[in-house]
Each structure stands twice: as C-alpha cells, then as structure tokens.
C-alpha cells in the first residue's frame, strides 16, 4: 500500500492548520505560539499541508473519480447543453452534435416566446397541476393510513407478510403496472369481460379521457402507496412506549392516544414529504403518462414532461423542447426553494437546514 508511508495519525497531527510548533506542549501559551508560527510560515505551510493531505487522501479521491466523472458528464454537461434553448438548433449541420451546437444560429428568447404563445403548452401546464392536486389529495394520505394500520398489527408474522405484499408493486416497472391495469379495467379486462358475460355492455376505462387522471392516480396508489409506508413506520417505531403508557395512565383511550401521541410523532415526516412533493410538483409521472399517451390522447395526458418529449424527441424541434424543459426546471427549482422556506417558517426542517 503506497500511502502506508504516511501513517494517517501522524499526518493528521501535522494537518488541520497546525505547524510543527503546535506540537510543543503547554496550554494557551503553546497555542498562541502555534498561531504565531503559522502566521510566520504563511503560504509555505499551507502548501505543505495540502501536499501531505493529498498524499494521505489520494486513494479516497481516486475512489470518487468514476462516479464524479459520470455525474459531470451526464448531469452537469447536459445542464450546459441547455444553451440550445436559445438556439435554432439544427442537428443536421454536422455529424457531431457538439459541432452542430456551435454552428446553430442564436435566436435569443424566440423559443420561449413561441412556447408561451402555444396553447398546447398551457394545456400541458394545466394537466400537470390538476394531476398534482389529485395526487396530493387522493394519494398522499393513503400511506399514512396504511402505516397506522400496519403499526396496529402486533403479530410480527402478519406484519411481515402484509409488508411484503404492500411493498411488492413498487418494484414493478411502469410498463407492467399499466398492462396490469389494462387486464382489470381495459376493454378486454376482467371487469369488461364479466359485464359482457352478464349481458351488459363492456367498458374500457383505460382509453376514457374523462376519468384518465383518476386512473393515473389509482395506478400511482397501486404501485407506490405501500412502499410509502416505510418512512412512516420508521417514525412510528421511534415513539417511546412510555408515552403511550403515560397517556393510557391518564385515561386516554386508543383513539386519543393516536391523536395525541402517534400523529404528533408523524408530523415532521409528513411535513418533509409534503415539502418534497410540492417541490417536485411539476413531475407527475413521466413514464406512466408517456406509456398511455397514445391510447388516451394528448388532450387528457399531456403534461410538461411529455410535452418536452413530443416536441423534442418526436418532432426534432430541439431548441423549442429544450426551452420548455428549461422553463420546467427553473420553475421547479423555485418550487423546491419556496417549499423549503415554508417548511422552515413552520418550524420544520425541510430538505436542507437553514
């Protein structure tokens, strides 16, 4: 091992802004002397410091490099690539995309102007918000209720089995979830099939634009509501049993204990998840909606993400689509920051600390 020549403990004694003078024994006088020595040594110490620290930590830095490189290439560089939003990007200018980007004409805010004049864009915005609110009202409370239900089951085996079943759909792909729903609610699904066998007309809920947004919400609930209980269960398991006992001694029944002990314990988690959800409000299920866009039509299913996909990938209008994506990204960032601010004002922690 190459760096065993610089034992970490010794190297550490020399780092952290200390010079060899700091090793001299003797309380505050020693510290003051060390500070003076550090000032005298000035830049030289800093450089030595850095070199030693690099020798000590170079393996650690080396280890982070593959991931950092991937993140730089596939997250940071595309952010710079958003400049095509201000271009009339033409991919056929060159075989190489980078060259094409350099040669494409700049058009300023023309793409954004076109977007804001496009009624389809505003329709996608509207669909996005309707879906967001539907999911907030119909989806969000369900994991909390399920967690309370599971938490009240005391038999460990029953709990484990119930959890295994509820977690399962989270690991299914959206393709699978959509096709499973098709077998239940689709034109050839089990409901339509049963109706027909009893002499009624069949139904096809999968292609009905009128109820499509509820269908999408239901798919989300089926897939992820069970998985969502994990964080709540963890919060519940950290509640001290003494609190319940004390409440019971004071005469609180089951429901009062839930109201006064259990729910307050969940409050920070609920607040955090609400903040995350609101911050991510513009993302309402891209893959899920894209999969069903053909069968139900863009009128009911187009949201911001699919709007970007349609204009960019399908219609090859890259500058325009990138501009729409940028609008979504900037508004989304604003939402995250605002939601955090609100959480802080409410006295909760939010995604990051103040």
């Amino acid at each position, binding site marked *: *091992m190459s*760096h*065993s020549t610089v034992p970490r403990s010794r190297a550490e004694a020399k780092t952290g802004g200390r010079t060899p003078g700091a090793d001299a024994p003797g309380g505050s006088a020693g510290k003051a002397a060390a500070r003076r020595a550090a000032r005298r040594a000035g830049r030289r110490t800093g450089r030595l410091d850095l070199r030693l*620290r690099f020798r000590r*930590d170079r393996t*650690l*830095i080396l280890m*982070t490099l*593959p*991931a*950092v490189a*991937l*993140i730089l*290439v*596939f997250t940071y560089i*595309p*952010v710079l690539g958003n400049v*095509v939003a201000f271009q009339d990007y033409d991919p056929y200018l060159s075989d190489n*995309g980078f060259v094409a980007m350099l040669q494409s004409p700049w058009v300023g805010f023309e793409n954004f102007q076109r977007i804001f004049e496009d009624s389809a864009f505003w329709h996608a915005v509207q669909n996005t918000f309707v879906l967001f609110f539907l999911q907030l009202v119909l989806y969000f409370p369900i994991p909390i209720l399920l967690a309370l239900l599971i938490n009240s*089951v*005391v*038999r*460990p*085996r029953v709990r484990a089995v*119930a959890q295994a079943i*509820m977690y*399962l*759909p989270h690991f*299914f*792909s959206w*393709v*699978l979830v959509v*096709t*499973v729903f098709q*077998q*239940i609610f689709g034109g*050839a*699904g*089990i409901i339509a099939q049963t109706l*027909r066998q009893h002499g009624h007309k069949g139904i096809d809920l999968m292609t009905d634009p009128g109820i499509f947004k509820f269908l999408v919400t239901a798919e989300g609930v089926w897939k992820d509501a*069970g998985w969502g209980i*994990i*964080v709540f*269960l963890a919060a519940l*398991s950290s*509640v001290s*049993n003494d609190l*319940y006992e004390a409440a019971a*001694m004071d005469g609180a*029944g*089951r429901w009062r204990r839930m109201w006064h002990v259990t729910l307050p314990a969940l409050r920070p988690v609920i607040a955090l998840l609400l903040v995350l959800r609101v911050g991510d409000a513009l993302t309402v299920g891209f*893959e899920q909606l894209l999969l069903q866009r*053909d*069968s139900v039509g863009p009128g009911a299913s187009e949201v911001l993400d699919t709007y*970007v996909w349609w204009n960019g*990938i399908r219609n090859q209008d*890259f500058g325009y689509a990138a501009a729409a*994506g940028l609008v979504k990204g900037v508004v*989304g960032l604003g939402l995250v920051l605002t939601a955090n601010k609100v959480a802080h004002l409410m006295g909760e922690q939010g*995604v990051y600390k103040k």
Partner: protein
Amino acid sequence: MTAVVDKPAVGPARPPGRWAAPPRPPWEEEPSRAGIAGKGLALTLAALAILFPLWIVIVTSLQSKKTIDAAGGLVVIPKGVTFIAYQELLGGGQVQRAALVSLGVTLVGTLFSMAVSVLCAYGLSRIGSLGHRWLLMLLLATMFFGAGLIPTYLLVQALGLTDTYLALILPSAVSVFNILVLRAFFMGISPELVDSARIDGAGDWRILWKIVMPLSRAVLAVISLFYAVGYWSAWFNASIYLTDQDMMPLQNVMIQLVQKQERPVGLATQVNTGQLSPLAIQMAVMVLALLPVAVLSPFVQRHFKKGMLTGAVKG
C-alpha cells in the same frame, strides 16, 4: 405496541408459534371484536387489491387455449396447468432475446453501478479528507436540478452511444441518493475498527474490501436491489436511444406485445395452429417481467428500513 416493530419473530423466545401475538402491556386495553374484524378486513382488501390482478395474469399465462376461450378471456379459476406459453416464448424468438438482453443489461449495469457507487461513497465517508466538502457539494447540488431530457438526448447522441447498450447503462449508472445512503451507512461503522486496521497497515482499498463491505451487507443488498430493479424496469432510454428492434429489452417488447397487442415476431407454429392463445403469450410475457423482482425483493425486505433510513436521516 410499537416496541417490537419489524423484528421477524425468530428464536426460541416465542413458543406459542410464530403467528401468535406477543404479550400485551398491562396498560393496553384488549381490542374489541369489531376492531379486530375491521383491521383484518382492511388488510385483506389491501392485499387482494395487489394480489388479485397478479393472480389473473399468472393463472391465465398457465392455461390452455380451450380454457381461455371458455372463460371468454382472462381466467380467474385455473383448470389444469400448462407451460406451452413459456416453452413457446423461451424457445427462441423476440421475447427470449429481449429477456436475455434485459438480464444482461441488469447484471452488468448493477455491477457497474454498485462498484462506482460504493467506491464513491467510501471515498466521501471520511469527514475532513481533502476535497471532501467540494465533492459532496457537487453531488448534492444535483438533487436540485435535473439534466433535462433534450440536452441529455443530444449528449448521448454526440457521444455516439445511440444503438449501443452503453446508452442503457451509462446515463443512469449513478444515483446520488444511493451514494448518500451508502455513505451514511459507511460513516456509521465504528471508527475504532477502521483505525485499528489502518494501524495494522491496511490501506483504504483493503479496509473497504475486508472491513467496510462485509459489515455493510444489508445496505449493499438494498442498494443492489434498487439498481437492479431500475435497470430491469427501464424502457424509456431504450425507446429513444435504440433504433434496432432486435436490441430491445423486455419492457419495450412488453409494450409492443401486451399494451399495443402487436403480434410477436419469430414465434413458431403453435399460435398460428391455434393450440396456444395469444392472450396466454401476453400474460406469460408479463410474468417474465414480474418474476425476478417478485422473487428477489422479499429477501431484501427486512433491510429496507435500514437502507432507507440511514439515507433519509443523514442525507
């Protein structure tokens, strides 16, 4: 009531049987009959809502054309079991190739993602190491913005990754969230253990391999499952980066065959001669897609909470 959560009942501590309830604390009132019944009903309904659709899919995939025709489509109550749909699918052709593609991408991708993520998580796990703060900021910042679909698409094209399997792996290879979960877990390992190994002359590679990773089996299992499920379930990248239909993974073939109800390519005679219902084929494709995750995830289940929580608290 809450003290015994999530600990599977193992060991000799509970003689009355593994399904029995642990003793109730004296202050807790006995549950009412209505309460027990209501709870049981709610749990059963939730389980049925998840399992019934899967039951129909699995059962129908195992039925002969006669049974499916008699039922008028999907079968709820099975009559015998036949595996011809699976024989047909796995005997060659589009679906078999797609399943192998998915399997390969999932295995290679998961190994690659885990290697990169574990290394990065360990590299960032020592507070005060050189560049630690900067690198961490670089990672954390990505939580607040996305790369954007169009620039990513143009980049993958410009890099020449279209129509290669690298396009299915590289753009989604690292998840910052997963790295943070791993890092939080590594940081929880007792520093004395790591220091004593260092004094004995072990370098960082050896410490990671011999001490940190063996102690982190739980979180490694969880994160591997997350990555594997991600690769197995992915279809979008294949739909925009691959043009060659022969390269498509299972999910994309499932869209064509099951959702859009197209006819499978390269399947032999049995569909055509009417021995095999096309519906059984469709359901068998779905079973192929759900089987690996349905089999794997329960094994990792008891670690979920640990894996999710270390990240949620410290991330």
